[in-house]
């Protein structure tokens, strides 16, 4: 489903170049629940932004569903992002002026979908994350865990090929974090949704089917989990 071949990413900081990704190659199959772990600054978020088409690699190739990504057309990139990728961020990033329902619907707005249909679909996904009774609430009227559930619904609403979650439990306490993790596992198991979870919490990583560890811009280890429940 995703294939990354020898991807490098450098940032120019003043006169020097910072090498953040140093030749990453990996493959993610359909229906995977993959954890990316690694120390702070190892390049996990950078990798995720690259996978999410928010960042262009300095070199290397990237294929989504067999299609090679070219970075010269904003319209094409935005459309792929809109249709194939769902983001979940550590800081939830809900739009403060919008209700939970409207927040979930944002990706659909950029597909030019009509409003009643957007609302209807958004409601379906709010139900899926058990937030339907908060549909009219704004982000500041919800707890962190609730906001993250809404964010998960937003990531799923467009029926993407893959959900990218960058430390989705990082801002939550252990119990609430676990609830989000349970939600991911359920979505993965019952609906076969492909999910990549970035974390530095080994307990979280252990709940994923596969783990990839990053150290200083390279993948050092990939392992299969003992199946847990």
């Amino acid at each position, binding site marked *: 489903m995703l294939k990354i071949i020898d991807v490098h990413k450098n940032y120019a900081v003043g006169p020097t170049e910072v090498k953040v990704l140093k030749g990453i190659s990996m493959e993610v199959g359909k229906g995977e629940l993959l954890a990316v772990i690694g120390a702070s600054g190892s390049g996990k978020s950078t990798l995720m932004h690259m996978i*999410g088409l*928010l960042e262009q690699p300095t070199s290397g190739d990237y294929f989504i569903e067999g299609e090679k990504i070219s970075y010269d057309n*904003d*319209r094409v990139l935005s*459309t792929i*992002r809109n*249709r194939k990728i769902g*983001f979940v961020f550590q800081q939830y990033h809900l739009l403060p002026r919008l209700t939970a329902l409207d927040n979930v619907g944002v990706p659909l*707005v950029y597909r030019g979908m009509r*409003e009643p249909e957007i609302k209807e679909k958004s409601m379906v996904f709010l139900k899926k994350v058990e937030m339907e009774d908060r549909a009219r609430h704004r982000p500041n009227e919800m707890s962190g865990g609730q906001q993250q559930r809404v964010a998960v619904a937003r990531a799923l609403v467009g029926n993407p090929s893959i959900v990218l979650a960058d430390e989705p439990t990082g801002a939550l306490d252990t119990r609430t974090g676990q609830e989000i993790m349970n939600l991911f596992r359920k979505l993965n198991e019952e609906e076969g949704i492909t999910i990549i979870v970035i974390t530095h919490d080994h307990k979280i990583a252990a709940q994923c089917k596969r783990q990839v560890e990053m150290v200083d811009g390279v993948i050092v280890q990939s392992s299969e989990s003992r199946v847990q429940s």
Partner: protein
Amino acid sequence: MILKANITEALRSLVSAKQRTILALIGIVIGIGSVIGMVSIGSIVQNEALKQFKDMGVDIATVRKDSGEKGSEMALKDILGLKGRGDVTEVAPYLTSGTEYGSGSKKMFMEQMGVTESFFDLNKIVMKRGRRITDLDAYRYFCVIGTETEQFLNSAGTPDPIGSRIALGDRIYTIVGVMGAVSEGGMRPYGINRSVITHITTGTRSFQSKEINTFMVRLAGLKAAPEVKAEFQDYFEKKSNGLRVSVNTAEELIASMKKQMQLFSLLLGAIGSIALIVGGIGVMNVMLISVTERRKEIGLRRALGAQQMDIQAQFIIESVTLCLAGGIIGIFLGIGVSLVFAKLSKWEFLVSYGSIALGFGVATAVGIFFGYYPARQAARLDPIKALRS
């Protein structure tokens, strides 16, 4: 559908930053207000000016004796003798002299005029009641009055002034008619509505200033002012030694009025444009702040699939919405100002629908023009940097 979502979003965002929105609006309101005000006042003035020519016709000229010439006078018989010569179909000499009437707090400045019967025809004066002054009234103390004079007499305790007497200076006149209201300015002598009019021969006997130095003529066809002037100059030079005259034709006056209108429009247009530029810069500033404050939102929207064009459209729509809101208030303001102007100058108020359309058009244009740069900034933000901010 994106458009609708964008408009909703624009309103949400503008409402959530009320103070800033209001501050940005002020400039636009003043700008659009002055543009609308100027166009409306312009059309009110023009309407008023042309109204007069519509009922009096444009084949009229006023001839004045040049001042400063002692000894040479325009004799009444010479003026009247012009009728039928050349193109002149009608002659109306007149004499004016101001008088204060009444006493204490009940006082009015009246225009005393001495005229011939032709004055009423030439100026298209319609009698409201009673009769006009005819040439049979020569040397007699009969008069007609204007509507404002009538109102004054009414309020001074004379409900129906016809038949009653009015004392002006050391003479007493009997009122025989009331004239209907006329619009003033242009070719018509000023003050007809607040006048007391007698026959010109009565005037030369009783008025303070007794010299006739103005007369109006109607000409058979349209002629240029210099040509008309040459004719009269020639005539009076022979009749009265060394007399010089100047001539104003209606056509000439319309031309100079049009020129004045253009100047007026240009001036107000300049003021309006400056206000709009200032307002537009205010809008641009507000939009730039809005973009900076919402970097995170922009980054997020990009992550969720918004194209650069979508972000650009969102902010341009926001700025157009802002300007249109200001535009609508400005349109009301401009119309209000022109209404006050019309009321104060007692002119007919009219709303030019073209100016309203212009107001909407200009507001939209300002919104697009000054919203473009901030919107472009927003669209070009690096999504990751924006998200991290």
